[in-house]
């Protein structure tokens, strides 16, 4: 297949170019417009975003020039809908935000597309379907729907389907509610395409996609006495191929792999992944910065990646006592931990993602910088998502941060970084070198430079 040798590589060979940016230019960002999740579907044809206002926007890659591998494809709005609304839990006097925490696509089974979207408490299964024909010529009804006067009807008219302008409809098919006391941070569809898990701070539940009135609790780390609480669940994911296996990460920097065949309640892990640390090296910040904000299996299923505040770690599922690779995302922040704690940035939850062939991983940083870490070539690059570099097909220039000492030309010093410009959510097309990078309220799409 033409072009297949180019997919996935992200090292020195790949140059990234600006392709598109979605969202408003103005600096005054409404809270509802803050992007909270970004996800490609399994084919990469669709790209979904969720925001703090509970809305989902889906973009579709245009297929016009699919036969020409060198052409650039654009993502255009396909559908948008209000997924969740703000609620108030009267019993506990707790606000339930409409913010979409995660979107996960189901593999496509028929003409329609399905995705799961979740806020803090409720998961919804949405069906997105196309309508491009409509029946016309009813016998008893006018075109506008009014009934014809039956006394005027003298002949029989059989309706026929005629083409119409494409309409994309989103409808909620299932609502999975009332199963989480704490805030949902993850959902993950199982490879069996029948079940999925949802994880909150203390518990993980297993659902069947068809059944909304029941879910099985498979992990419960709530202590008998809440005063003894020291650790929460931060992320969870099913293995991409083994339907009995899932992992969950914690605020203490550990990852537990569980096998659902072992017991109904997976409180006892099958494997515990933890990098040993010298207790004498611990500081006030150690535990906070070790908290894992995201965990993602590789496409191969052999590895998993974790993101903590300052680094990305690649773990081999066969080795529990330490990661096989560690990459520093923004090590220069270690000397700023005090102020990052004061402005709460130290609690920012960055996500990470793999490219299609697991050779490159990507994660975000501050100042609208994001990092591409090439595992195979042991290279890394820092790029920036900004309106200044948004001319069509403009190649992104690598960025450099000066940690201290003399600042070279083109470098930016740590103190000049804008900590309000965070890239928390990124996604990589499953097959091609197309990436979606979310700044606070804009979605950037970058593509591999094509000569």
């Amino acid at each position, binding site marked *: 297949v033409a072009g297949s040798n180019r997919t996935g590589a992200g090292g*020195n060979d790949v140059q990234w170019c600006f392709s598109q940016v979605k*969202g*408003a230019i103005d600096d005054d960002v409404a809270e509802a*417009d803050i*992007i909270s999740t970004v996800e490609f579907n399994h084919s990469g044809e669709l790209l979904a975003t969720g*925001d703090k206002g509970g*809305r989902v*926007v889906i973009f579709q890659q245009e297929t016009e020039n699919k036969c020409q591998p060198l052409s650039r494809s654009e993502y255009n*709005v396909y559908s*948008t809908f*209000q997924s969740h609304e703000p609620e*108030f839990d009267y019993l*506990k*006097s*707790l*606000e339930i935000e409409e913010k979409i925490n995660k979107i996960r696509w189901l593999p496509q089974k028929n003409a329609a597309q399905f995705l799961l979207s979740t806020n*803090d408490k409720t998961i919804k299964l949405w069906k997105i379907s196309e309508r491009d024909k409509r029946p016309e010529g009813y016998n008893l009804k006018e075109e506008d729907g009014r009934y014809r006067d039956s006394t005027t009807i003298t002949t029989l008219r059989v309706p026929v389907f005629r083409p119409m302008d494409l309409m994309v409809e989103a409808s909620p098919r299932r609502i999975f509610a009332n199963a989480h006391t*704490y*805030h949902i941070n993850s959902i993950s569809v199982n490879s069996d395409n029948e079940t999925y898990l949802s994880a909150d*701070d203390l518990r993980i539940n297993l659902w069947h996609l068809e059944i909304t009135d029941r879910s099985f609790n498979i992990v419960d780390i709530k202590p008998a006495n*809440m*005063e003894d*609480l*020291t650790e*929460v669940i931060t992320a969870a994911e099913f293995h991409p191929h083994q339907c009995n296996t899932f992992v969950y990460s914690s*605020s*203490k920097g550990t990852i537990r792999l569980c096998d659902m065949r072992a017991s109904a309640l997976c409180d006892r892990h099958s494997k515990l992944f933890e*990098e040993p640390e010298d207790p004498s*090296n611990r*500081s*006030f*910040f*150690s*535990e*906070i910065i070790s908290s894992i904000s995201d965990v993602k299996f590789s496409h191969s299923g052999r590895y998993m990646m974790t993101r903590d505040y300052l680094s990305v770690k690649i773990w081999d599922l066969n080795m529990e006592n*330490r*990661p096989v*690779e*560690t*990459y*520093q*995302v*923004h*090590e*220069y922040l*270690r*000397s700023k*931990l*005090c102020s990052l704690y*004061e402005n709460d940035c130290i609690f920012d939850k960055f996500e990470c993602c793999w490219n299609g062939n697991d050779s490159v991983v990507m994660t975000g940083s501050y100042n609208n910088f994001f990092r591409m*870490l090439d595992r195979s070539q*042991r*290279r*890394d690059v*820092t790029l920036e998502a900004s309106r200044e570099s948004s001319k069509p097909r403009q190649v992104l220039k*690598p*960025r*450099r941060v000066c940690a201290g000492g003399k600042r070279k030309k083109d470098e930016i010093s740590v103190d000049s970084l804008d900590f309000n410009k965070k890239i928390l959510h990124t996604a990589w097309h499953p097959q091609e070198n197309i990436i979606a990078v979310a700044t606070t*309220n804009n*979605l950037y799409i970058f593509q591999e430079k094509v000569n």
Partner: protein
Amino acid sequence: MSEDVEGVQTGEEVAEEPKEPETKMISMEKAEEAKLKAKYPNLGSKPGGSDFLRKRLQKGKYFDSGDYNMAKATKNKQLPVASVEKTEITGDHIPTPQDLPQRKPSLVASKLAV
């Protein structure tokens, strides 16, 4: 032995420096900790412990639904604006439909979908 890759350099092969940067890392962290403790002497010794976690689990707590609705109204600036006439005495003015606060506008579409 796991390999640490320094992330600051770009586009070039990075030499591995196993042990040395670690001690530098730790002393930087401890220096930051000292800074923090100097600013907030009452800071508890267990930062990732139950206080912090319990605060996180309490996110979104209000006193009651009235408290919640007031907070929402203030956020959306939907509170009825006081009448322009400062000399007006409460009870003297009979409200007309024009005086009532505007209904919350119907849900706005995302700016990404423009």
